[in-house]
């Protein structure tokens, strides 16, 4: 392995996000309206077609955690009466607001002109924006995206979502921005989204190679950052994904692995599929537990919460409202458990995984409820051994390094033993 560092694309996305936070701080003076919304089911192209800027509260929370600031915010929210049982993203966000709304990069976040509650795959989103509305007293639009309980979106459900976008969301955006809906501008943006999605899928699918030139869980967090946050549909976003793809293809051509906290991981001992979001308070420490053992993640579900592009979805500029409905409906946490199992089974096979891990977080029932059933089902269908780890998103009290390391080491020893048995 080489000395730990960061790939060019990692630095680039960091600069893009920092630039976005600076722009948000200046938004009130610049007269740029601000729309708060969530990563799953985000309608960034539509928001930006009105010259408004998106704020993603989950991104604020996870970025705060990566900078060691979430614990104070959570304590602030719990002092204000929020239960220890509920989602730590919400408490981190509420605590940040109560502490002056200074964002993770140290810049002040503007108040929202509109809360766009895209209700996609997470019940907590609803309460989160009700809580924020109590604080900000601003207009709120609720976009109800039906859950894919039967594993597919019906035409009626698609029409229901599109109808809400047309009749409720677009008029609300027109009102708060003072601009008319410009469908041509939206189409151009959606076209750029599809280009970026093509490039992102090529990057994610490069993990089929051995060695994998990417880490599709920890590393993918950097890769999906721009498309999950403010840059889908923008020229900067499209340029980033073109550059990222080039970088990964160059690495693949040289048979190099991804940069990790342990250095470049060229020698890859275990290929893993991971379900569930990462821990953010100890992100690099957690990653290192994998990379020190030579484990690379070749596919993950977390990298699909902002869109399941690798299963074929692309934004379609010819049908702007319909494609936005399709996008929202298809986000990972909006999929039924059987669909999630099928996806994991497919990953395990197509990416030739040695193992399958679930990282279950206390905060997120949308992900976590049912994961033990997923574990058994994926094991049954693939014959690949599963492992189960537990911590949290942004509450460091639930991250137990010794316990996690122990479990992981035992898991890798078990993989070794299986491998040795199969070779004899």
């Amino acid at each position: 392995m080489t000395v730990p560092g960061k790939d060019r694309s990692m630095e680039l996305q960091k600069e893009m996000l920092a630039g976005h936070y600076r722009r948000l701080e200046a938004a009130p003076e610049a007269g740029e309206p601000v729309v708060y919304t969530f990563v799953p089911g985000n309608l960034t192209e539509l928001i930006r077609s009105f010259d408004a800027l998106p704020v993603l509260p989950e991104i604020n929370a996870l970025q705060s955690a990566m900078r060691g600031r979430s614990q104070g915010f959570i304590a602030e929210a719990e002092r204000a009466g929020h239960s220890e049982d509920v989602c730590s993203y919400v408490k981190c966000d509420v605590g940040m607001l109560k502490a002056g709304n200074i964002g993770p990069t140290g810049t002040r976040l503007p108040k929202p002109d509109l809360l766009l509650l895209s209700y996609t795959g997470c019940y907590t989103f609803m309460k989160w924006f009700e809580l924020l509305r109590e604080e900000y007293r601003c207009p709120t639009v609720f976009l109800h995206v039906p859950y894919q309980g039967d594993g597919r979106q019906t035409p009626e459900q698609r029409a229901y979502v599109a109808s809400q976008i047309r009749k409720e969301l677009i008029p609300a955006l027109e009102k708060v921005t003072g601009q008319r809906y410009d469908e041509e501008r939206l189409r151009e943006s959606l076209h750029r989204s599809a280009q970026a999605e093509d490039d992102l899928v090529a990057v994610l699918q490069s993990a089929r190679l051995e060695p994998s030139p990417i880490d599709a869980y920890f590393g993918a967090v950097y890769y999906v950052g721009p498309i999950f946050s403010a840059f889908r549909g923008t020229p900067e976003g499209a340029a980033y994904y073109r550059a990222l793809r080039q970088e990964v293809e160059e690495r693949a051509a040289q048979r190099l692995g991804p940069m990790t906290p342990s250095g470049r991981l060229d020698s890859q001992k275990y290929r893993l599929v991971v379900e569930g979001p990462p821990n953010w308070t100890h992100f690099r420490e957690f990653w290192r537990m994998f990379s020190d053992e030579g484990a690379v993640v070749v596919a993950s579900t977390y990298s699909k919460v902002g869109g399941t592009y690798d299963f074929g979805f692309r934004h379609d500029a010819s049908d702007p409202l319909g494609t936005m409905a399709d996008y929202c409906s298809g986000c990972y946490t909006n999929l039924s458990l059987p669909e999630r199992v099928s996806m994991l089974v497919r990953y395990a096979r197509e990416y030739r995984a040695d193992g399958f891990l679930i990282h279950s977080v206390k905060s997120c029932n949308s992900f976590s409820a049912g994961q033990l059933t997923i574990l058994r089902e994926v094991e049954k269908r693939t014959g690949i051994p599963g492992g189960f780890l537990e911590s949290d998103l942004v509450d460091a009290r639930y991250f137990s390094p010794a316990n996690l390391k122990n479990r992981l080491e035992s898991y890798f020893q078990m993989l070794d033993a299986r491998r040795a048995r199969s070779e004899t």
Partner: protein
Amino acid sequence: MTRSSVLDWAFERYEDLDFTAVRRWIEEAPGRKAAGYLPVYAPREVIRAAGMLPVGVHGGGERLEIIKGDAFYQSYICHLPRSVIELAQSGRLAMLSAMLFPSTCDVIRNLSGVWQLLYPQIYVRYLDLPQVADARIGADFWRGELAILLRDLCAVSERTATDAALREAIVTDNAARAAVRELYRIRRETPWKVPSEELYVLMRAGEVAPVEEFLEKTREYLAAVERDPGRPRDRSRVIVVGAFCEQPPLGLIKTIERSGCFIVDDDFLLGNRLIGADVPAEGDPLRNLAEAFVRSAVKTSIFFEPDPEGKRRLLSERVAAARADGVLFAAASFCDPALLDRPMLSAGAKAAGIPCMAFKFAENTGQFQQFREQAGTFADSIKLWGTQ
């Protein structure tokens, strides 16, 4: 029939984790089938119009030992799904031909997927209740969902649904809702006449009994209450908020009322009165059901509140309607809807000078002394110092 004989009937159904009465109903005539549903709300009229018996599945409470259920859920997930799984894995729900999972929270939503994986022979449907500000869009969507549900349940029951059957189901359910409203009215106005323990088991029996039988028993209970109204007592009047999904153990309800409180409003088994008005029977019955849901569903934590002032006002309104002295927040541990709502509801109540107290429970909580002390102190403080 006496009050105690009605209560015996209700207790028998409440305590029977083998659902013997449901099994008996199924066996009484060839081709009969039953459909289970999880909290909070399922359109029982549609289930009955498909010729099936609606069966509320509200967990195992404190009476069920969890052996297999814990293997399905992490410690930080509420208790209800593990006891529901326990019921299923032990064969106690084997008589159900369909299971419906309403959009109450992510845990119940994902339980629908667990069911699909574990019991592929059972019809499973996630009921995505509409949540939009535009009533027209919401009603159109929900009517479509109800039509699919009716079609699918008829395929399970091998019956043909007719508008006449739907209308009959609506009329009967209107009568049941009216009876429930009447029981709640009497308890609100004269809580010593209808102890919450009795009201609760009667409501629980209504979750598994045929609606006609429930109506008959409820009317007998109401008549018995008139004959034997009990002795008026002076206690603090409280609303119990937050227990709309996982149900509190009966001991907890009894404890609250034995610690110096009268419960004059609650969220227990909220689905049986979620639609607050009669549903018209004439015209398109599915449209009527959809419109009734969209326009007259009571406000509760499982729904988005479109009115920015709604959360702050809600408890003031409920307290005024029930002439309550205070609010007890009683949420199940790890219940996202109740616990995420609590800071907003609590802020509104406190701003209105309404005394509040909060605790958490699990359906299998077995020790009530702490609740007795908390609720007793709360009741005493109201009596001593009144509302602010």
